[in-house]
């Protein structure tokens, strides 16, 4: 018999049950009465927007009732969040949200576990294509996650909090962090002054984080006449100081090319430069210049082009990899903390900075059951299903058509990813 059942039907049932449980101890939402809410459901491909709730109870009963695939709220605060016309909502300010997600990063693991698959003929590509070269069919992006990419986004959060927020006078005890439920984190800055900023003002903060429009007059350029690079000193403030300090840190840490490559191998720093900096005694020489607070940096055999490459490298490792439009937008919708991410079945988990450090994103946000006695029946529907770690176990890789019994949380994960169905 052919089943015409919606493939997400079973999954949806699981979400309904889970939300009934979750709403009993749902994390508090700051200024809930001023936020716009939006939902993506299972059977509609558009977003239901402009929902408002005057108190947490109303929101939670709606959440439980509809058990959406994705739930969002506005980073902005409004007088009338439910008004359908943006200009009538009465904007009161907006959290400054930093979205850090490994999607935006260039990581070696992605090449191993991300695929682009034709929905018609199962053609599999590792390149980001938009049309199937074999049958012109539509392409489904199948983005995966692993410890490496999750660690990369965590490192970026730590960099943001430790290296950048103090520059704005924001201390780490005051920030609100959410694990996004997928490949990254959302950091909400709620200081009054930052909430009041318009997009143009936010752009200054964002530029600062991402090293955009860095134009320090005369600095950071090669001076032909003296054969030196005019850099900065470790005592300098702002970005100048940041670059000198990071340069020194790297020179201190890595005394061989191998050691350097372990940390930065994925970035393309010229082999010759790498050799000079980490494979010869010139390392000691430039290290001393930095320690002696000499703003002129001189290395024999490195000229204008070489220094440009070093500068580019130093900027790359010093800046923060964030999703810029999210931070600039003053009407942005962000995932609701405590809700379930419809692409993983993981929970969007609120964390403080110190919890984040020890947070294990493939264990801690699991809300569905891992009970070995209550396995669910699954059928793999994708030609490529990579391995995934959930808590202490690795599952997969699987092949198409394979039927397996898995813990509920793993089954839900695969079904959310769209690579398997719950039978």
């Amino acid at each position, binding site marked *: 018999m052919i089943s015409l059942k919606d493939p997400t039907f079973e999954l949806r049932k699981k979400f309904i049950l889970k939300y009934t449980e979750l709403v009993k101890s749902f994390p508090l939402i700051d200024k809930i009465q001023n936020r716009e809410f939006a939902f993506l459901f299972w059977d509609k491909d558009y977003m239901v927007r402009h929902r408002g709730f005057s108190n947490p109870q109303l929101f939670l009963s709606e959440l439980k009732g509809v058990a959406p695939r994705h739930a969002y709220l506005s980073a902005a605060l409004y007088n009338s969040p439910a008004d359908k016309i943006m200009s009538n909502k009465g904007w009161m300010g907006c959290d400054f949200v930093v979205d850090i997600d490994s999607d935006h990063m260039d990581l070696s693991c992605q090449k191993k576990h991300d695929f682009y698959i034709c929905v018609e003929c199962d053609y599999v590509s590792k390149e980001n294509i938009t049309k199937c070269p074999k049958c012109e069919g539509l392409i489904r992006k199948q983005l995966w996650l692993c410890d490496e990419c999750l660690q990369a986004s965590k490192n970026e959060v730590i960099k943001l909090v430790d290296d950048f927020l103090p520059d704005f006078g924001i201390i780490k005890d005051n920030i609100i962090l959410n694990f996004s439920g997928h490949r990254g984190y959302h950091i909400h800055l709620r200081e009054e002054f930052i909430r009041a900023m318009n997009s143009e003002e936010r752009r*200054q903060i964002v530029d600062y984080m991402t090293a955009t429009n860095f134009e320090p007059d005369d600095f950071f350029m090669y001076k032909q006449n003296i054969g030196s690079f005019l850099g900065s000193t470790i005592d300098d403030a702002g970005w100048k100081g940041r670059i000198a300090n990071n340069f020194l840190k790297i020179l201190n840490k890595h005394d061989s090319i191998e050691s350097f490559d372990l940390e930065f191998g994925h970035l393309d720093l010229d082999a010759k430069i790498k050799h000079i900096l980490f494979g010869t005694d010139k390392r000691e020489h430039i290290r001393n210049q930095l320690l002696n607070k000499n703003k002129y940096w001189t290395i024999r055999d490195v000229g204008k082009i070489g220094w440009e490459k070093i500068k580019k490298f130093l900027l790359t490792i010093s800046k923060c990899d964030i999703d810029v439009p999210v931070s600039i937008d003053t009407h942005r919708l962000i995932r609701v903390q405590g809700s379930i991410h419809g692409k993983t079945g993981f929970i969007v988990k609120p964390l403080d900075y110190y919890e984040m450090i020890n947070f294990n994103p493939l264990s801690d946000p699991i809300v569905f059951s891992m009970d070995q006695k209550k396995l669910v029946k699954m059928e793999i529907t994708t030609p490529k299903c990579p391995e995934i770690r959930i808590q202490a176990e690795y599952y997969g890789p699987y092949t198409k058509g394979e039927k397996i019994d898995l813990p509920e949380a793993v089954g839900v994960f695969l079904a959310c990813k769209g690579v398997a169905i719950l039978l």
Partner: protein
Amino acid sequence: MSNYNAYSLVYKYPWLEGGREIFDPTSVSNEDEDPIEYYNQLFTKYFESYPDFHDKLLQVFSLALDKKESGIILTGDEINVILFYTVKTILTAFDNRVMENHVSNLISKLYHQRLLEETEQNLEVLCRKMNFECHFEKKQMQIGNVLYPCWVDVKNYVPTASLLKDSAYQLINRNVINGRVYLLKDNVARLLQEVVRRQIVPDRQKSGGELMDLLKKITHLSPLIDDITKLIEKKKLTQTQYESTNVYENVDYALYPPCIKYILNKATNGVNLTHSERLHIAFFYANTNHTVEETVDVFRTLPDFDEKLARYHVEFSRGIGGKGKKYRIYSCAKVKSIDMCKALDKEYGDIICAQGVFRKGEVRRIPIKTPKDFVFWKNVEIKRKLREDKVQKK
């Protein structure tokens, strides 16, 4: 402490609290008072006690329209307050954005000079009164080889600095330590200059014909208004030259996509554009056969217009000078990602943007990819309509 009492400060800097009370003709006082009589009394008093008031006022406008940045000597007495508010009132009545930019340029530069001459102590007081809390410390902060006398909180710095388009004032290029931006006295004066510029800009709600009619009935102002009108005519700064409906309301304008129309409208209304909006316009114009002049003209009506800077940016967007790289037009995806797409806007939206177009052989509408696609398809649509009209007429 400071040798500044409230009055001497207001006389030198008329926009400070208390200045309006001394003299602000735009705030008509009593409802049942006849405004003509009220204004006549007000101005007669000053024109008669300061015989060269007319000439000085005219000089402000004439120097400004010649794009001069000095030439007027600011006093520190009552007449300085009157001058400031009379200029503001006249700007409000004329409602001419180009003249407004020239005049606010001149005035803000004059005050910049005055601010530079202030002692640090006075500057600190002024900053506070202008909502730009700035702290001068006895012990200066040494960064590198430079001693910095003062600092501003990042939270106070950013809003003021974003009024300035100069990249040197962007947060990323400043000395930032633990939530403080360290500044030199010159930097402070330059930042305050932008605040001053905002003060001379007219109050839009009061702009226009009614106020103008009123001013023309004032014995002493009417000849001045005539003189300024002549100046404007001589300089060909007629308002319509820059008004959206007249400049763009030709075939070209009809072909502009919603996102561009929206920005142009903002610009012609003298509302400052964001960085992304400026770039979007510049790239779009660069890629649709507009000249550098035409592009600079878009920015001319902006409150922070700086000819040199605007020209530089426009040329940059075309790869002239600078890095020599010609920038491509923003894609719709990019425009959408920065929330500037107006496809669904009530006023500017268009079905071409909202639903796409029927490409050859397609049965469904296919979304457009760039604002340039819009120009192409809009052209197709207009031509088709013209053809249809002709057929119908026949």
